[in-house]
């Protein structure tokens, strides 16, 4: 559906996007993650034909963006970051204007606007000037704008920023719903959002792609070790260390804190196999009192931090 090859963008001498390659299949929901200034928005702006790439190529549905910008723009719906809309226009007038530019038949315009207003929950602000709307409502009007022509590809730049938690859940539901048949690209820096809505995640850092895959593959990719935490009473570090080190697969036992009553220990193990039953058996055989025992899970946050902080 979308094929991006060696895409590069320079702002003066600053390289914002550096030779990135990726493909997006039809019906995929792709999450574009990255710290601030990583090049997410620039990438999306080039995909939508707003910025011209310094080099590289973009193909959408077999159409090259150099030659068929207008055709590509017809396939796309785009919600820019922070939804910059005309302040003076009324929401209804604005959507009518968008419908006209999107070449929607005149007898279809009103039903389409009404349908989008229901979907995005903007019925009660239709007759207000856009400038008077709260950020959340503006964002929803922007979403309605992006979906006006029922585009095959929907590009959303931080679609849930400025929304309250209820609205975020709603918008995610809408995105999931549309994503069943459409291709969606979302940029975000809310990781749980990417995890909840996206089929695939691409992490960008300093203009380069540092990871690409489903959340599961990313997690496997980033975790090399299993880490367990133990909190014990009535135990001293020496004996704990000698007892636990005997286990196959335990690489190291480190002390986090030790007070008179409590001992916190971190166990680093090889990732193959689950050691938790063995660890528990050892504890059972002693007179230690187990207060806490958990395995550290590799969250998307950890992966993200690891990948974007290294360079």
């Amino acid at each position, binding site marked *: 559906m979308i094929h991006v090859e060696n895409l590069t963008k320079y702002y003066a001498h600053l390289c914002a996007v550096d030779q990135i390659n990726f493909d997006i299949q039809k019906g995929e929901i792709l999450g574009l993650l990255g710290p601030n200034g990583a090049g997410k928005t620039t990438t999306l702006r080039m995909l939508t034909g707003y910025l011209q790439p310094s080099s590289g190529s973009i193909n959408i549905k077999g159409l090259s963006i150099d030659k068929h910008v207008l055709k590509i723009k017809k396939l796309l719906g785009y919600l820019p970051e922070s939804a910059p809309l*005309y302040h003076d226009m009324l929401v209804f007038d604005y959507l009518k204007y968008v419908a006209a530019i999107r070449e929607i038949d005149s007898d279809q315009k009103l039903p389409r606007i009404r349908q989008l207003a229901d979907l995005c929950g903007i019925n009660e602000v239709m007759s207000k000037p856009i400038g008077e709307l709260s950020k959340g409502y503006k964002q929803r009007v922007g979403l309605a704008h992006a979906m006006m022509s029922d585009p095959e590809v929907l590009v959303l730049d931080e679609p849930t920023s400025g929304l309250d938690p209820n609205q975020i859940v709603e918008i995610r539901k809408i995105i999931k719903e549309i994503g069943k048949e459409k291709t969606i690209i979302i940029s975000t820096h809310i990781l749980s959002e990417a995890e909840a809505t996206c089929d695939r995640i691409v992490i960008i850092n300093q203009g380069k792609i540092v990871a690409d895959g489903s959340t599961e593959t990313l997690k496997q990719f980033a975790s090399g070790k299993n880490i367990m935490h133990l909190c014990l009473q009535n135990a001293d570090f020496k004996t704990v260390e000698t007892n636990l080190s005997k286990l196959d697969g335990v690489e190291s036992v480190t002390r986090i804190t030790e007070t008179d009553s409590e001992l916190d220990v971190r166990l680093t193990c090889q990732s193959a196999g689950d050691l938790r039953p063995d660890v528990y058996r050892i504890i059972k055989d002693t007179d230690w009192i187990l207060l806490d025992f958990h395995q550290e899970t590799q969250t998307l946050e950890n992966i993200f931090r690891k990948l974007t902080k290294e360079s």
Partner: protein
Amino acid sequence: MRQVAHIFRKEFSAYFISPIAYIVISIFLLVTGWFFFATFFLFNQANLRTFYTLLPVVFAFVIPAITMRLISEELNIGSDEILLTMPVTYGDVILGKFLASVALIMAMLIPTLAYPLTVSFMGQLDWGPVVGGYVGAVFLGAAFSAVGLFASALTRNQIIAFIIGLAICFTLTLIDKMLFFLPQSLLGVFSYLGADVHFQNIAKGIIDSRDILYFISVCFVGLFGAHIALNQKY
């Protein structure tokens, strides 16, 4: 072409949604009305000569004020990102906005038809130059709009856009009155560049293809400049 019409309709109504159109039209009528009738009875002639003499200077002030927001405002609030990712070309955007500005100038000129009507009650008015003057005014307004649109495409700051537009329009208006500064060899070129001469020719009732061609060229250069300025931005 249909996109041009949609953008035109949106921009034209935007003038009347915000107070811009009403303020600009009021000031224009106030200034031209005052200067025209202040001297009208002194000259005791039934023509619109003073009105037309004044018009290029007033236009040089008023038109950049009309056009300054057209592109600058989009750049400033970032709505260009929304506009240009819809299926429109730079050309559609520029042409639509240009036509909206020309239409507003026409709307601004309509109330001034009261002047020739008033004059025709008081004496024998020759309608030829009056009609010529209005045709010329539309051409002049279009040329200045194109210049103002170019200025607006240069910057995201509306005030800077206004000042640049004003400077260029003012120069075009006055350049043929500054000719004594220039060497003899350049006189011909520079007197041709003056907008005032061409406008006054038409306002005399002489419709000469050279004058029409001049205004069309200014429009073209201005709009093309705006196109280049936009192209450079992305």
